[in-house]
């Protein structure tokens, strides 16, 4: 079945095309549009499910090998045929010149129908030159399996929800066309088999994000937010594009399997050493920062909440913003080669996690809180990647997709039920009116807070444990402390959100006005109910997806159950996400892929596999060497030295993480349920901190001052230069031309014409009587002149002869 994965991105595209191109023209009904959109996604999900099963779990599973559709010809399209493009790396160019010349000549000499066959094995001339052959084919391995399942599965829930949420909207067909296009782009992003396909998907999701944030384009803030998102993402894309160029220049190919196979044998670049791969990793990380809203490029994500809530759930919580994580994990070989970049990733992630979590505490817009929560959780994921636990990062992506999509959809349901009220200060006690939403939301709340056994606990606890016990970077303990504080804040603001929304007094009854209206769109249903301030439960099409996601958010974490609970082993075989994803994670200590099980996923030569098979038979060393040599201060090791056993240490950290979650929830309960005066008191007491958090640390203002204003000043300056200097020059030359033309014109008029006129006047005055007199009009006069002329001519030529003849006649003496 995995031969048919090319259908997966195609189905949403087809659905989007039908809805988008025909929906308006033929006035599709909402039911038809919904069934096309949901049907295409559901089919894609089914195919994905079958493909992943057949790839990883069936009797003849390919796992852990990587499956690329061009391998067995299931789907292959030469997207950018090589031959004309020559990739070089300057340093070694001269040494490989002959080879490259030959290769290019050979490629040019091929028959047209064979051009797409690669004669140069991509990457064999690494460091020198090669022909760039980019194919459009899909790759199925552990990482893309998980992402495909998340994208289509969570996407399906959100699509179903959106059919209820967007009911009555005039742009129904447009919404689902954009959403389908987004699904297509996202699937291309995660399924592509090379960097360029990832880039296509990357830009595609960026475009769809822009379109969907600006879905209510008639509202200024939505239009501004969409542009802000687009422009901020361009900054990241710039780094990403540079990194792709770096990859192509270094490895001579953009195919993952080739690039990573080569990169595995590159030397490690330790802390402070900025080698080739560090620079590539930096470019990639800048791209990831833009897409995944990390500091300092996070500013677009909270504003992106101007889009419809399903969009926020799908794009800005569950899938698109995790594209950065996908990319970092996909290129973990490159990142792990650079200890510096690992540290940068970890620290940026930690900083973002704490930063966004503290902002989330004071926001009043329910979607803004969730948005900052998303930024914070993305920070957690990058934290995990930075400390070397890429699998845990992806695990958190998965659990986060479940509970954050759930909470966003729950928020959407609340907003829907509250008639487009987003301010939490006007809610309260909604559990009475929206029981399903409330119950499902509770699951999401417990999950994100990290309460055992909800899914968020497993992933977040693993992240913190890996941060504390990391041997990749020397600052793991800082990351752990920051992460723990951020986790406390997370529990606190999420409890606050739940308390303000679902518990407490009903605040919507008094003073409900329409001054703060968000997402105003045409609801032509339930006009009577619409005007009553009483909230109502959402229809089944909205709470059923919530229920599905709630179940996933509750039990989804068991695929990555902590080793402390299972006797220090990752149980469950391939069903355990750690084992499942192991083959694609490079191990810097051994320079091979895979850590727990000795597997190979990037087409190594056979002897390497055999060598590694030999390695497996040996007992794993109890204490493997640190990947980059020295490891600095290690919190977990320090604790282990005191406690004496690794399992005890792990339990200690689990208890700490549960404790901080409990503290956060307890504080939230205290502040927003027990004594509702406390928030104001503490806000007054910690006024500077409160103000900073409430105003989002003035990052927007800072960017406005430091970037936007400077750019505007620059633009103004350039405009002034243009209008004064350039235009001045142009106008000056025009003036000069006018002046010189006036001079030459005068000369012409008065001098040249004067001379001509003078001559003409002279002729007219003096000569004309003469000539006029000659023209008598009598034919005989003309004839006379002719005869005279004849006589003159004869006289001229024969005058002497005639004179002589006459003289001789007279001389005869007659």
């Amino acid at each position: 079945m995995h031969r048919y994965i090319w259908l997966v991105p195609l189905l949403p595209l087809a659905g989007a095309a039908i809805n988008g191109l025909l929906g308006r023209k033929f006035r599709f009904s909402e039911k038809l549009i919904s069934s096309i959109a949901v049907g295409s996604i559901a089919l894609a999900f089914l195919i994905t499910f079958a493909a992943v099963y057949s790839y990883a779990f069936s009797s003849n599973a390919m796992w852990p090998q990587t499956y690329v559709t061009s391998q067995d010809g299931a789907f292959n399209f030469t997207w950018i045929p090589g031959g004309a493009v020559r990739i070089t790396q300057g340093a070694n160019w001269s040494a490989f010149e002959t080879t490259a010349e030959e290769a290019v000549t050979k490629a040019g000499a091929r028959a047209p129908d064979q051009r797409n066959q690669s004669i140069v094995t991509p990457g064999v001339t690494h460091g020198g030159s090669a022909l760039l052959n980019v194919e459009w084919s899909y790759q199925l391995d552990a990482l893309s399996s998980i992402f495909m399942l998340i994208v289509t599965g969570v996407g399906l829930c959100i699509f179903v929800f959106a059919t209820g949420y967007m009911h009555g909207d005039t742009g129904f067909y447009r919404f689902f066309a954009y959403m389908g296009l987004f699904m297509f782009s996202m699937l291309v992003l995660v399924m592509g088999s090379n960097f360029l396909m990832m880039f296509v998907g990357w830009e595609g999701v960026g475009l769809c994000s822009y379109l969907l944030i600006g879905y209510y384009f008639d509202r200024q803030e939505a239009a501004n937010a969409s542009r802000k998102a687009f422009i901020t993402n361009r900054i990241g894309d710039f780094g990403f594009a540079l990194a792709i160029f770096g990859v192509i220049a270094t490895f001579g190919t953009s195919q993952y399997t080739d690039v990573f196979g080569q990169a595995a044998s590159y030397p490690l670049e330790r802390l402070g050493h900025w080698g080739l791969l560090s620079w590539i990793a930096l470019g990639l990380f800048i791209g990831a920062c833009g897409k995944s809203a990390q500091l300092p490029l996070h500013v677009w994500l909270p504003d992106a909440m101007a889009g419809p809530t399903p969009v926020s759930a799908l794009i800005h919580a569950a899938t698109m913003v995790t594209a950065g994580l996908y990319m970092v994990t996909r290129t973990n070989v490159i990142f792990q080669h650079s200890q510096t970049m690992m540290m940068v990733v970890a620290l940026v992630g930690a900083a973002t996690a704490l930063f966004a979590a503290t902002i989330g505490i004071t926001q009043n817009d329910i979607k803004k809180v969730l948005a900052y929560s998303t930024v914070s959780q993305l920070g957690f994921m990058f934290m995990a990647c930075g400390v070397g636990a890429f699998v845990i990062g992806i695990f958190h992506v998965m659990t986060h997709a479940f509970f954050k999509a759930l909470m966003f959809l729950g928020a959407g349901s609340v907003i829907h039920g509250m008639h487009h009220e987003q301010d939490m200060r006007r809610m309260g006690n909604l559990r009475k009116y929206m029981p399903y939403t409330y119950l499902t939301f509770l699951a999401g709340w417990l999950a994100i807070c990290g309460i055992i056994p909800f899914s968020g606990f497993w992933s977040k606890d693993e992240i913190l444990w890996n941060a504390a016990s990391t041997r990749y970077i020397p600052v793991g303990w800082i990351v752990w402390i920051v992460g723990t504080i951020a986790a406390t804040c997370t529990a606190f603001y999420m409890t606050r959100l739940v308390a303000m929304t679902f518990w407490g007094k009903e605040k919507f009854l008094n003073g409900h006005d329409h001054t703060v209206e968000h997402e105003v769109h045409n609801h032509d249903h339930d006009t009577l109910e619409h005007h009553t301030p009483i909230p109502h439960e959402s229809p089944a099409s909205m709470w059923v997806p919530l229920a599905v996601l709630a179940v996933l958010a509750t039990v989804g974490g068991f695929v990555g159950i902590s080793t402390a609970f299972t006797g220090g082993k990752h149980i469950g075989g391939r069903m355990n996400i750690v084992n499942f994803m192991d083959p694609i994670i490079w191990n810097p200590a051994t320079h091979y892929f895979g850590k727990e099980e000795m597997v190979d996923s990037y087409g190594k030569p056979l002897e390497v596999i055999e060598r590694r098979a030999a390695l497996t038979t040996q007992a794993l060393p109890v204490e493997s060497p640190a990947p980059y040599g020295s490891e600095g201060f290690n919190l977990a090791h320090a604790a282990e030295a005191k406690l004496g056993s690794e399992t005890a240490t792990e339990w200690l950290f689990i208890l700490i993480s549960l404790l901080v979650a409990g503290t956060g929830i307890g504080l939230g309960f205290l502040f927003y349920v027990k004594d509702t005066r406390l928030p104001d008191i503490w806000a007054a007491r910690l006024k500077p901190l409160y103000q900073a958090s409430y105003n989002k640390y003035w990052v927007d203002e800072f960017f406005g001052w430091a970037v936007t204003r400077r750019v505007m000043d620059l633009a103004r300056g350039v405009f002034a230069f243009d209008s004064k200097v350039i235009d001045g020059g142009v106008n000056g030359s025009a003036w000069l031309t006018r002046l010189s033309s006036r001079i030459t014109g005068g000369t012409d008029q008065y001098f040249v014409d004067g001379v001509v006129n003078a001559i003409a006047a002279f002729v007219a005055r003096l000569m004309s009587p003469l000539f006029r007199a000659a023209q008598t009009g009598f034919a005989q006069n003309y004839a006379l002149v002719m005869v005279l002329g004849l006589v003159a001519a004869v006289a001229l030529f024969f005058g002497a002869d005639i004179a002589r003849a006459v003289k001789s006649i007279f001389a005869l003496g007659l």
Partner: protein
Amino acid sequence: MQFLLFNFLSPALGLLFQTASNGRIATAWEKAQHPDLSKFLIIGSLLFIIGVAGVLTRRNIIVIFMSIELILNAANLNFIAMSRYLQDTGNVNAVAGQIFAVFVIVVAAAEAAIGLGIVIALYRNKETIWVDEIDILKW
């Protein structure tokens, strides 16, 4: 007049009526067989001069036509004389002169026809055939 006749024209007349050295008839016969070219040329030039003078001096357009005919005939006479002269020298192209003369006659006839047509048109419009009353060539 006397001066003109005897002092100026007499060499020409003398040239025209040269005295023969042999017997008169034989000489005349021989002269008829082998005419002296210069006599014809002189007569031709006189004809030409008379024609030109007529064209330049006469007012009646008909007479001018007749003078033009004289000019043409002067040319014809030259052609014929030269042809005959060349025949005597044995030149094979001698007949060309006669053919030219025929052509000239044809052209003269055509010219006369057209010319007289013009004269008639002119007379109908201007009511005159006196050339000194016709100065429309000026315009």
